[in-house]
Structures are given as C-alpha cells and as structure tokens.
C-alpha cells in the first residue's frame, strides 16, 4: 500500500492510529484526581508534540541519515513563522498560503545556507550553520525590523491590508473556515477529552510528512545518504559526488523546519526572533539524539518526551512533592524533597541536560535503542537489530580522531 512494504504499512497505520488517538491516550487520569497533573491532553501541548515532531523528523533526515550535525536549524523555523504571519498580514487568516510560502522560503533559505555550509564537513559544517543561524537571529532581531518587527515580534495589526478578508471571515487562524482554536470537549465519566481542530490539523500534516520521511528512508536516495554517513571516501572512489545528495537532504530538512515554524505561527498568530536562537537549534538536536538519530520513530518520541516533561516537570512544586512523600517519616520526607527539588520545577533544564549526557554516553541510539534492549531482554531475543549504524559488519565504526 502507498508504495510501502507490508511491515512499513503496519508501522504507518500504527503511527496514524496513535497520532489520531493522542487526545485520548494522553488523558489517562480523570479530571480532578491527584494524578491529573500528568495529563498532557490539552491542545497547546499536543500541538507542540506534533509541530516539534515534524521539526525533529526533518532534522533527522539530515543528521540521522548523513551524519551532518547542523546547529542552525532554528533559523528555518523562524523563517517559516515569519512567512505565515506575513501572509496573515497581507491576505487573510487562512493558514494555507502561509504554509506554502513558509515551505518555499525556507527551502530557498536552506539552499543558500546549505550551498555554502556544505563545502565543509564535520565540525566546520556545524560551526558554519551555527554562524548562519546566529546571523539570521541577529538580523531578525535588529536590522530587518521592517520585515520582522524586531524584538517585539511580528503580529497582525488591525490596519494591515489583509486583502482577502471580508466581514464574514474568521478573525483568527483558520483552514478554509475551520478555526484552529476551536475544540470539542467530550466528557466520559470523570474523564474529559479535548479534540482540538488545530491539533488535528498539525497531526494530519505530521502524518503526511512522516509518510514522506518513511519513503525517503526506504528510497535509493536514503540509501545514498546513509552511504555518505558511513564512508564518504569510499563513495568518492566509486565515482559518486556526495554534495548534491547532502544539499538535497539539507534543503528537505530545512523545508520540514520551515513547515514546523509555519505551523507554530498557525496555532498562535505571532512570530518572534527568539525562535531562531541557537539554543532552539540545540533543542531539536537534543530531541533527535534522545529519541534515536537515524531511526524513524525516534525523533518524534524525543520531541514528545522533551516537550511533555518540560511542561509537566516545570509545574511540580514543593507542595506537590511533600504530598507525594507524605507517607515517609518527617525527617526523611524533608530530605527527599530537598534532594529532588533542584531537578524539578525551574530545574527541569538541569534534568534535561543530565539525561541528555547520559543518553549520549551510554545509549548512543537513544530511547529507541533502550527500548529495543529492554524488549530483547524480556523476550530473550538476542538477534542483531538491523538498524543502520549498529551492524558492525557492514558499518565500520567511525575512525578515531588522528592528527
């Protein structure tokens, strides 16, 4: 089906089911129960899951397949956001033209940056992309104020032309009349499920781009990208020039990032320069690595994982901690809360940093590899997984640094 093998079709169907059922799956606890704070089924967060999932899938096409570590992908996110808001300002609140423009502009932008950056590889490439992204951020923040509205951020004002707007058009982002902010709330027993239009819009787009990335992974083109990661010298000897392939991968992943940025602005009609900072690029790197670079599901998992804990962890405060550990004797309880305190609430970044270091050190394949290991331990299977980069016979380890 759809040009996929049987296994992949099943995989895709599972992904589709999970994505569409997210509002239900993320609300395991009834409203008002003690565990309700762990629910993540509210629109804002679910939209973030889908959007950052798209961002990470795109980044993975570049980093996971070719091994080129870009530290500048947030620039495309920003470009996409600005494109969408400009379309709001010029045409109307319909998100479609904006998203199309976002993909086109980010593709052009990625073509330009990629053309220059890809002349070098390895760390030079990382630093070049980093420099470009910081440059774009500085430009957006100060110089290009007429285009980006500087530090205020770009937003829609009442005196904007909006030539396609008439009295009947909705006054917030919509897709041919389907408002992004509208939700249907369903109460079943103590549970409340929120089915939000914006989330489903993002989710459907996410499924489409996931399908595309699946096809890229399985295509000869994808194989070529993996070959670049494995051994460029060998590729050169076989008479293949890797540059067009890497550039194509770079542009594709830039388009993904632009689309994600555009969707961010589709959910919330404003765009700011801080989206382009290199810390944001770092975030998507974290997501991809945490989930498992070079795997299909990994980046999405990583994005969901980070966004979920960012939201949930940062809401836990000391009172909640005390209520959890209240069963312990007093002195012990205080000690435990004191120990846990730095890692939650505002200290979430600390936890993230530590977790990330652990993953890079002990689990280079990320959560996916961890899951596979656990699964194999449970089922007693000890067969080699046939994921790229873990098959020692055909994928030699990268050579150590030699001066």
């Amino acid at each position, binding site marked *: 089906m759809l040009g996929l093998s049987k296994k992949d079709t099943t995989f895709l169907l599972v992904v589709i089911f999970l994505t569409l059922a997210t509002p239900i799956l993320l609300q395991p606890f009834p409203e008002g129960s003690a565990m309700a704070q762990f629910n993540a089924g509210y629109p804002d967060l679910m939209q973030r899951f889908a959007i950052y999932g798209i961002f990470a899938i795109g980044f993975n096409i570049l980093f996971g397949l070719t091994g080129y570590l870009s530290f500048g992908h947030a620039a495309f996110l920003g470009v996409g956001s600005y494109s969408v808001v400009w379309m709001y300002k010029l045409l109307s609140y319909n998100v479609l033209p904006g998203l199309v423009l976002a993909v086109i502009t980010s593709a052009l932008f990625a073509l330009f940056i990629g053309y220059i950056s890809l002349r070098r590889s390895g*760390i030079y490439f990382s630093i070049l992309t980093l420099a470009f992204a910081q440059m774009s951020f500085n*430009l957006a923040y100060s110089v290009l104020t007429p285009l980006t509205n500087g530090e205020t951020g770009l937003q829609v004002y009442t005196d904007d032309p909006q030539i396609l707007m008439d009295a009947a058009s909705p006054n917030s982002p919509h897709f041919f009349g389907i408002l992004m902010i509208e939700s249907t709330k369903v109460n079943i027993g103590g549970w409340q499920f929120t089915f939000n239009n914006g989330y489903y819009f993002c989710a459907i787009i996410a499924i489409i781009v996931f399908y595309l990335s699946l096809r890229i992974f399985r295509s000869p083109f994808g194989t070529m990208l993996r070959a670049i990661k494995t051994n460029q010298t060998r590729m050169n000897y076989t008479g293949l020039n890797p540059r067009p392939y890497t550039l194509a991968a770079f542009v594709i992943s830039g388009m993904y990032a632009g689309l994600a940025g555009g969707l961010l602005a589709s959910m919330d009609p404003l765009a700011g320069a801080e989206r382009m900072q290199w*810390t944001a690029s770092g975030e998507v790197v*974290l997501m991809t690595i945490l989930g498992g670079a070079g795997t299909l599901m990994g980046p999405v998992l990583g994005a969901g994982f980070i966004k979920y804990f960012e939201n949930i962890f940062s809401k836990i405060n000391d009172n909640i901690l005390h209520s959890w550990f209240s069963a312990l004797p007093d002195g012990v309880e205080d000690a435990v809360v004191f120990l846990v305190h730095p890692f939650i609430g505002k200290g979430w*970044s600390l936890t*993230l940093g*530590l977790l990330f270091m652990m993953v*890079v050190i002990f689990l280079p394949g990320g959560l996916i590899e961890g899951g596979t290991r656990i699964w194999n331990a449970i089922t007693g299977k000890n067969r080699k997984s046939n994921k790229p980069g873990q098959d020692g016979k055909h994928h030699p380890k990268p050579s150590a*640094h030699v001066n």
Partner: protein
Amino acid sequence: MDAIILQLLNGLDKGSAYALIALGLTLIFGTLGVVNFAHGAMFMIGAFCAVTMQKILGISTITLDPEKLDFLGKPLQIKTPIVESLFGKGLGDSIINWSVPLSILLAIPVMLVLGYIMERGLIKHFYKRPHADQILVTFGLAIVLQEIVKYFYGANPIPTAAPDMFRGSIDFGVLIGFAENAIIYPAWRLVYFLFSMAIVGAVFAFLRFTTFGMVVRAGMADRETVGLLGINIDKRFTIMFGIAAAVAGLAGVMYAPINSPNYHMGMDFLVLSFVVVVVGGMGSLPGAVLAGFLLGILESFASMNEVKSVIPGIDQIIIYLVAIIILLTRPRGLMGRKGVMEE
C-alpha cells in the same frame, strides 16, 4: 584619527575575551582533538568565582549599637565584615575593594580541579568517538553547569565592582598628544587587556620554553609517536585541559566588572569564540589570539555610527560575515595547519 584609536581601544576588551576563550578552545582541540562546547561554561564559572569571592568577603557580623538609634527608635545595627575584624579596618576595606583581582586566587584552583575532573570523568571516554558525539556531550555538560549556577545564584545578572582605583576613565588623548577629552577610555578595560596579554604570553612561554610544553606541542603534532617514546601523554593532556579551563576561567574573572555575570554569558561567548577559532585556523594558537583581537576590533569599528549609517546593522553580523567569507576563501582559516581536522 582619534576616533579610530578610540574604536581600536574599544575593540580590545571584547577581543581579549574572545582571544582567551578561543585560546583555550584551540589548546583543547589541538592537543586532545576534542571539540569542547562546555568551554563557554568555564568562562562563566570563572566570572562567578568573582561573584562568590565578593559574597564571601562581604559576610558580616551584626552588632547592636545601643548609643545610636535608627529611624524606628531601635538600637542601630552595625554590619562589620569579618574581614575587617580580622585584618583591621584599613586593610579589610582594601581587601573587599580588591575582591575581583583576589578572586584569581580562588579561580585558579577551582578551574584546575574542574578541568581535571571534567577530563578524567568525561572527556577521556570521548577521544575515540566521533566529533558529533563530543559536541553533543559537552553541550549537555554546558547546560548542566549553567543550570547549577542558575540554581545557586539566580537568573539575574550580579553586578561585580572593580577596585576603586580602576573605576573611572582615563583620558588617553592627552597621553598620546591629542586634544583633551578626545579619547576617554574606562580604566578597567585597559587592565583587562593587559591582563589578557599577560595570560596569552604566559601560555605561549609555557609551551615554548618548558619541557612540558615541548612535549605537549609534540603531542599536538603526532600523538602516537610521543606515546611510543615512553612519555605519559595522557597525564600531560589532563593537565593541559586543566590549564585551558583555567585560562577561560581567568578570562571570566576579570570580565566580571565589564559585564555583570549571568548564567548564560558563557553560551553567548561560546558561539563567537568558535567562530574565532575557525577564522584563526583550527589548531593554531597564534591564529586564535590574532583572530580574537581582529574580530573584536572589527566589531567595534562596525558599531561606529558613521559605518552604521552606510550599512545599517553591519555591527550585528560582521563577525559571522567575516567568518563565512574566510571559511570559503581560506578553508583552513588564517593560520590553520594542513591536516588538522580535515575529513
């Protein structure tokens, strides 16, 4: 003419900071072949050593003076810093006043120990792994260090004062024969520049004139052979890592009065320092220092109003533009050696 000299001087303090951080980066990179994204965090921790010293010296005992009353009619509280009660008023005052230079004494051991722990605990295991992994793990470490500092010191910048002696500005113009008030320059920045020159000189002298330095330079050139000669290169590299951390830390200590330290200053400097390293040429120490000053001065020239009126916003992007142009025209940077980091 005087305007040009003023801009040169303005570029020096930023340039000094870039040069020192880039020097440490290059040291680590050239000797160990490790790309260290946590190096900016070292700079930041150095700056916070100055903050800590200020806090330690400011610890006071509170005594009640029943003779004098405050505005509520209660006995007046008098704070006497412990340093004063130990050393007497005059000396105590001057110690507090000189807290920033004194923090150097705190920063050196702190940074050396931190560098040692980092290298033995983490970096050691990453020599054989690809650069991408090194970048990622040190990036994670940088986040962790940043968050720890944020947890203890809060997110707001903490003002740290330079000694009274250097708080004002010097009228430079008179010294070199210009009209009065033509070139006025903050004294501390000059101190910072001289200090950084001294550090750079010390590092170069250390590498040039000591046996240890000779071995390290040999190790930079060809690690395996040096190991085969029976020299424990690993131990020396660990010390080298400590020294690089100390250089970044010292740069941070003295930078504290120029810009109040906050927890993400390291990250801001890190990006630029990496650009500096690349422009100077990977693995070239003189290149790193030269490029640091060059870019610092370029940045200050680009921020002149005369330049800005011609090309608006050039001050924001000049460094990156220069880096991109240099990387594309001279792929090895200004003074890069052949064969370093070229896959």
